[in-house]
């Protein structure tokens, strides 16, 4: 990338241990400006700890974190001016009104009095909070509270936004609103979000970092990860014909193409077959042509798109097997 500016987030060899437990061990990654990054990991993987270190709230045991080229350890004030942070569970004061809260936070974030009023109107508009601006936060529903947290994080227009589980506990409609809100920040701000909801991350994020047991186990775009972690494509076929001859026939199409599962034939004689291959390219046409030529009857053929969920499960499972030396962890960022 020919960007003369330093990357938005630069983490190298970050380690955090407390109480004899290593929560984060040797994490390194880089996030370019304007990118939206998804941070994935099972519970207790070190996501929240890493995010807290990024904000300067927790000190790191060793390693360095730089936000916009500035070290979190030596220039905490400068770093805090450049981030918007929404912690896990989004803590908010119960007895303030939405607009009062944003005003107070805006003053703490050093927005001048003159600019603050218009800016609050703007974020209320962006996060669709205009209707509740005079309501007391303690009386708001979860979805509104979550959006107040996001509005607060983007209030000072920081170059880097860090959100820990922004969509936790929301209904699908609210998730959609929050997702659109995050997507609207694309290009202007660097956003790093953690989540358990994988389709969520897949749709919003440019790049995904999967961590487990305090280590980066995989990182890249969702498509890259699919290829890299799963390493094979799957097809699902509904066909009727001689089942016993099928494996040999499949091997003639592509040597690595194997039959992984099949069901009993239904009333019309059709079986549902699962095929797997290590090859990347599209095999659908070849499979269809071969089967039809051999007088199989084919009702349906689909290529399965592995979801991020599969990738996530595979990556975290693998990291439990191989705790030392993560295989894909140290790939330089795109």
């Amino acid at each position, binding site marked *: 990338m020919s960007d003369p500016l330093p990357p938005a987030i630069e983490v190298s060899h970050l380690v955090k241990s*407390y109480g004899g437990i290593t929560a984060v061990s040797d994490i390194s990654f880089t996030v370019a400006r304007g990118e939206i990054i998804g941070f994935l990991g099972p519970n207790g993987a070190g996501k929240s700890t890493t995010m807290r270190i990024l904000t300067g709230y927790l000190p790191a045991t060793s390693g360095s974190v730089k936000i916009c080229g500035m070290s979190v350890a030596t220039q905490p004030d400068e770093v805090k001016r450049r981030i918007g942070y929404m912690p896990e569970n989004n*803590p908010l004061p119960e007895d303030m009104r939405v607009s009062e809260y944003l005003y107070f936070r805006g003053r*703490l974030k050093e927005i001048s009095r003159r600019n603050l009023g218009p800016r609050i109107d703007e974020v209320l508009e962006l996060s669709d909070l205009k209707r509740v601006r005079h309501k007391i936060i303690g009386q708001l529903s979860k979805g509104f509270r979550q959006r107040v947290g996001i509005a607060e994080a983007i209030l000072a227009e920081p170059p880097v936004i860090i959100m820990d589980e922004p969509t936790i506990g929301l209904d699908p409609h609210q998730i959609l609103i929050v997702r659109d809100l995050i997507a609207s920040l694309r290009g202007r701000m660097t956003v790093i979000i953690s989540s358990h909801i994988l389709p969520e991350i897949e749709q919003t994020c440019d790049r995904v970092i999967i961590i487990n047991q305090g280590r980066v186990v995989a990182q890249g775009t969702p498509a890259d990860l699919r290829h890299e972690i799963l390493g094979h494509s799957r097809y699902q076929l509904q066909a009727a014909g001689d089942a016993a001859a099928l494996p040999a026939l499949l091997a003639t199409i592509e040597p690595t193409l194997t039959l992984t599962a099949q069901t009993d034939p239904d009333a019309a004689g059709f079986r549902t077959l699962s095929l797997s291959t290590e090859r990347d390219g599209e095999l659908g046409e070849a499979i269809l042509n071969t089967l039809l030529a051999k007088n199989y009857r084919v009702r349906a053929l689909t290529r399965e798109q592995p979801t991020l969920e599969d990738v996530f499960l595979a990556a975290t499972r693998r990291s439990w097997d191989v705790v030392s030396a993560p295989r894909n962890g140290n790939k330089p960022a795109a």
Partner: protein
Amino acid sequence: MKHFFTLLSHEIRMLLVSPGTYIAATAFLAFMGFVFVGILENYSTAAQDASPAQVFFSLFFLPVFFMVPLLTMKCLAEERRLGTIETLLTTPVTTTEVVLGKFGAAYFLYLLLWGSTGGLFYILQKFASDPRLLDSGPLIGGYTFIAVSGLFFVAIGVLTSSFSRNQSVAGILSFVLLAFVILGGRYLSGVSFLERESLRPLKDAVAYAQIFSHYDDFTRGVIDSRQVLFYLSGTVIALVFSIFAVETKVLHS
């Protein structure tokens, strides 16, 4: 210190919109009113040596025991329980500013409440118009003592609030510490164990930290800089420890 006033005005505002403040204030004024009426009744039956103001302020510790914990127990404990301390400390404010803001707001309210007891003296002046009852010396001395010692007492409240994320624990701890600081000195000065010659320095230290004797001096119009220094240094120490407590809790959370 750029954010101190933002935090202070926010805290004062939050205290003033909270119903708990008004309940505490009403209870305080009702209690002080009863005390005052009791004192005046004594005066109406027989002539007394001390002026009403002197007697009134000598009971300062009673309201301090329940007012200070009520005013301060919430300040840091609540922030930590809700987790808002995390959002607060990830803005460009320092822990010192946060603790000073909380302290400032609680102290402001403490002064406001004590200031409102001035009304009692005003009523007395208005209806009795007896200059003997309203001796300005003990009155000014008493209020000065309240203002100076209040710094230390409120700082103790803030300190205990920084120890726990549970408000009640903070409140009880603050009550115990205040009782020790205020009554402990009086108790220790009467302990015969300290009469030994070898424990002389300890005895002196206890005498120096006698809050009741400070009070006597203040109402007699003697403002000793050593006593003022006792409260100021106590305040500074308590606040420094509160800052440390918040920061170490952050490190280990």
